[in-house]
């Protein structure tokens, strides 16, 4: 084992914390980029993960534990077993993050590829290791950029297959979940407004723009531009807030 200098050891630690890579891979990436952290990230993310045979076998075992008896996918039942193995509730937002890593097409289903891909991206091949990664995955929600990706991913994932829009109830549920991590003070008003005045499915554009709205417009609406390119529904929401005297005009 090489003796690492203190600064390099720090960098290694940082690298692992951020990417969730194994020590071995981290070391490899850092060495390849001359101990420059930024460059090391590039290296790490652009490399295909080497699959050792041992890894594959363990993943295969894991997959078989959860897979549905009649089709080559992990379905709802399998997922609830997975959740209990991990000791998390199925509604826990960390499952969303996990699905994101897997790039799962739709909720409550994982294809074999998605399952394998996700676990490999996380650099784990057992339940234990996956469990260890849970806090890391939770922390990813605090990262601005990642939250943005996860939020936008959630739309496609949560909606019904073959539908263009997201059913209102599901959308509200997702928003409650996501904004619990993000502290947007108007989230409850938003959900009330939708149930009160809208009662229809949510389009992709509205979903995406809502995050922008929550991010950039302050809760007192002082910097809200009525002439701006906000979707119609958000304009209506602002009207609603004025109507209900939640915000002063």
């Amino acid at each position, binding site marked *: 084992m090489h003796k690492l200098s203190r600064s390099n050891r720090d960098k290694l630690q940082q690298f692992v914390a951020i990417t969730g890579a194994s020590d071995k891979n981290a070391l490899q990436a850092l060495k390849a980029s001359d101990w420059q952290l930024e460059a090391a990230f590039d290296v790490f993310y652009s490399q295909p993960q080497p699959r050792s045979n041992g890894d594959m076998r363990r993943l295969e075992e894991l997959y078989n534990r959860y897979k549905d008896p009649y089709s080559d996918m992990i379905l709802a039942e399998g997922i609830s077993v997975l959740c209990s193995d991990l000791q998390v509730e199925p509604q826990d937002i960390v499952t969303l993050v996990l699905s994101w890593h897997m790039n799962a097409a739709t909720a409550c289903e994982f294809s074999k590829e998605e399952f394998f891909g996700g676990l490999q991206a996380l650099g784990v091949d057992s339940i234990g290791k996956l469990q260890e990664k849970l806090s890391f995955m939770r922390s990813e929600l605090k990262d601005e950029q990642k939250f943005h990706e996860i939020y936008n991913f959630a739309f496609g994932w949560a909606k019904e297959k073959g539908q263009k829009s997201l059913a209102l109830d599901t959308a509200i549920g997702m928003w409650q979940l996501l904004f619990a991590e993000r502290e947007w003070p108007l989230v409850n008003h938003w959900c009330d407004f939708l149930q009160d005045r809208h009662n229809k499915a949510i389009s992709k*554009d509205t979903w995406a723009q809502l995050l922008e709205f929550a991010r950039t417009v302050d809760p007192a609406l002082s910097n809200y531009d009525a002439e*701006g390119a906000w979707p119609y529904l958000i304009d209506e929401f602002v009207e609603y807030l004025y109507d209900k005297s939640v915000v002063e005009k």
Partner: protein
Amino acid sequence: MSSRQNPEPMTIEEGCKLIDAAVTKLTRIIEGKPEPPFASHEYIGNYTIVYNMCIQKPPYDLSGQLYEKYGAIFQDYDKDTILPSIMEKHDEYMLRELSRWSDINKIMVRWLSHFFYYLDRYYIARSGNSSLTVVGMTCFRDHVYEKVHFNVKQVVIALIHKEREGQQIDRALLKNVLDLFVQNGMGNMERYEKDFEDFFLTETNSYYSRKASRWIQEDSCPEYMIKAEESLKKEKERVSHYLHSDTEPKLLKNVQTNLLVLVAKQLLEKENSGCSALLRDDKTDDLSRMYRLYHEIPEGLEPVAVAFRLHVTAEGNSLIKQAEDAATSGIVEEQVLVRKIIDLHDKYMAYVTDCFQNHTLFHKALKEAFEIFCNKKVAGSSSAEMLATFCDNLFKKAANDKSNDDSTIESTIDNVVKLLDYISDKDLFAEFYRKKLARRLLFGRFSDDHERSILTKLKGQFGGQFTSKMEGMVTDMQLGKDQQTGFEEYFKNTNTGKPKGVDFTVTVLTTGFWPSYKTSDLNLPLEMVNCIESFKAHYEIKTKHRRLMWIYSLGNCNLTGRFDAKPIELIVSTYQAAVLCAFNNTERLTYQELIDQLNLGHEDLVRVLHSLSCAKYKFLKKEPASKTISKTDSFEFNSKFTDKMRRIKVPLPPVDDRKKVVEDVDKDRRYAIDASLVRIMKSRKVLPHQQLVSECVEQLSRMFKPDIKMIKKRIEDLISRDYLERDTENPSTFKYVA
């Protein structure tokens, strides 16, 4: 005359003595004192004195001293003689003195320049000093003008004030004096400007400011304007009489600012005599004067145009309010209102062309005013609908009453087209017009000429797309006549199953031109069915690839009702005829039986039965005899019915179309907005939200004013249909998705 032979050179003292003598003589002459004029030898002698002194050999070449002497002569004269004389006098007398002495000075300069001419030729040329004339004039300026100009200016201004207040003054004198100011500038206008003009303008400013305050309180607007016009005229004259022409623009601006610009608001808004009142009372002279006065001033017409616009808007709004108040039970007297608006337009357009010289500012003001009130709703009817109804009534009357001459109809049509220009929802007008046109063409008499005339004018103003459907409808009617002839021919020649004793006319309408109508599966009486079939046969021979859709709701029928008293001809709609014919076979039918037999919808049947049993003419007896139709009623042929008329027309009240028209137009607008957005994005590729919206509004403004919210919704719809997407970096910019 001989030059001095004496070899002794003359000294300066000797020379000056001689010169002084000459000067004294000269001054006596030019001051008008008794003194014999210079004889020619004296004149030449004076010149020679100078000449000799100049050509003397040094140290006796006295050119320099002579030059000094020349200057000293003038200085002394100015200080000792001229200035005191002027200072002695006051007022006008002082001016006269100044003028007189100035002239005298000029003469002296001329004479002495001649005496000292040799200096000019050689000494001055060599030494570069100022010429003798300049020296003489400069002395006057420095020793006389500089000392007196302040007082002189005071006097001049006082005189001008006198003249302004109506008294006569010596204009020639003032002209001379002011010329002096100019002259003493020695080539530029500085002395005139600084020593006189500036003070004059300040004085003028306060003079007219005072006048303006007084007049604006005491006088009416027309009176004030007359005074203002007079003042400006007088000041112009003043310039031509004695002021320098440079002063004119500054002076006029000064007067205009005080009399017209600063008080513009008060003047134009004067109660009972201001712009509004003048417009109301047709005071064309005063209005023309107003235009003339304010036209001269840069941007001066703007407040007048604003007053004009406000007045016209107020007039228009009050017409609208009158109509609103007069509307009983939601029915608007649109004939009256539209006529009044047309008259208003004619009246105020006349002002624009005559009093306001066709100025664009006033055309614009008129347009803006009309656009404001022409787009107001009255008792729920939009102006688009009212205008369409107006046209409908106009044409219906014209077709029935041939006494109306064509030129009045034509000019009314012109007015309608003009008014339509002010209405923003032109597409709504087109839709209402189309619906009513359909009724006119199918149900009443119509004049082909009038219909075509208005369509041509609308096409000219708003484009072919606006009128293409309506033109198609009118053409259909034309073709229909030929078609019918062909149909008759067919029967004459073929004699196949011609319905016995039934005269039958078919009008074929091109779908797409005409408004959409509901079809129904009405079960017609047998006689009618035969007619239909025979026409179908004929039509299929003529054209293979067309499908006929029968719209029974638009048809009408002449039936003979064989009542006990006498037979009466009934003119009814096809639906009504079908119901009545049902009683040919049975005396009595229940509501349910009628529904089953005829296959009409409930709403339609209720309407028809009501018109035949509960309205003015009761051809059917209803049991129970209540005022409304219910599903449990039964009906019987009322053989006892009679009326003094032999022919009765029973109208079927039309269903209220308005909501449907508005819905249809909204739908079309959504498509138009979509098309416009796609068109814009296709050519621009990338565009920020604001610009996209404003370009879209502009593109569509010819037909209607799109609602911004609707545009936003359509943009979102296009995003979800993958025509557009938001830019990832900047979500308020859109990109076209190829």
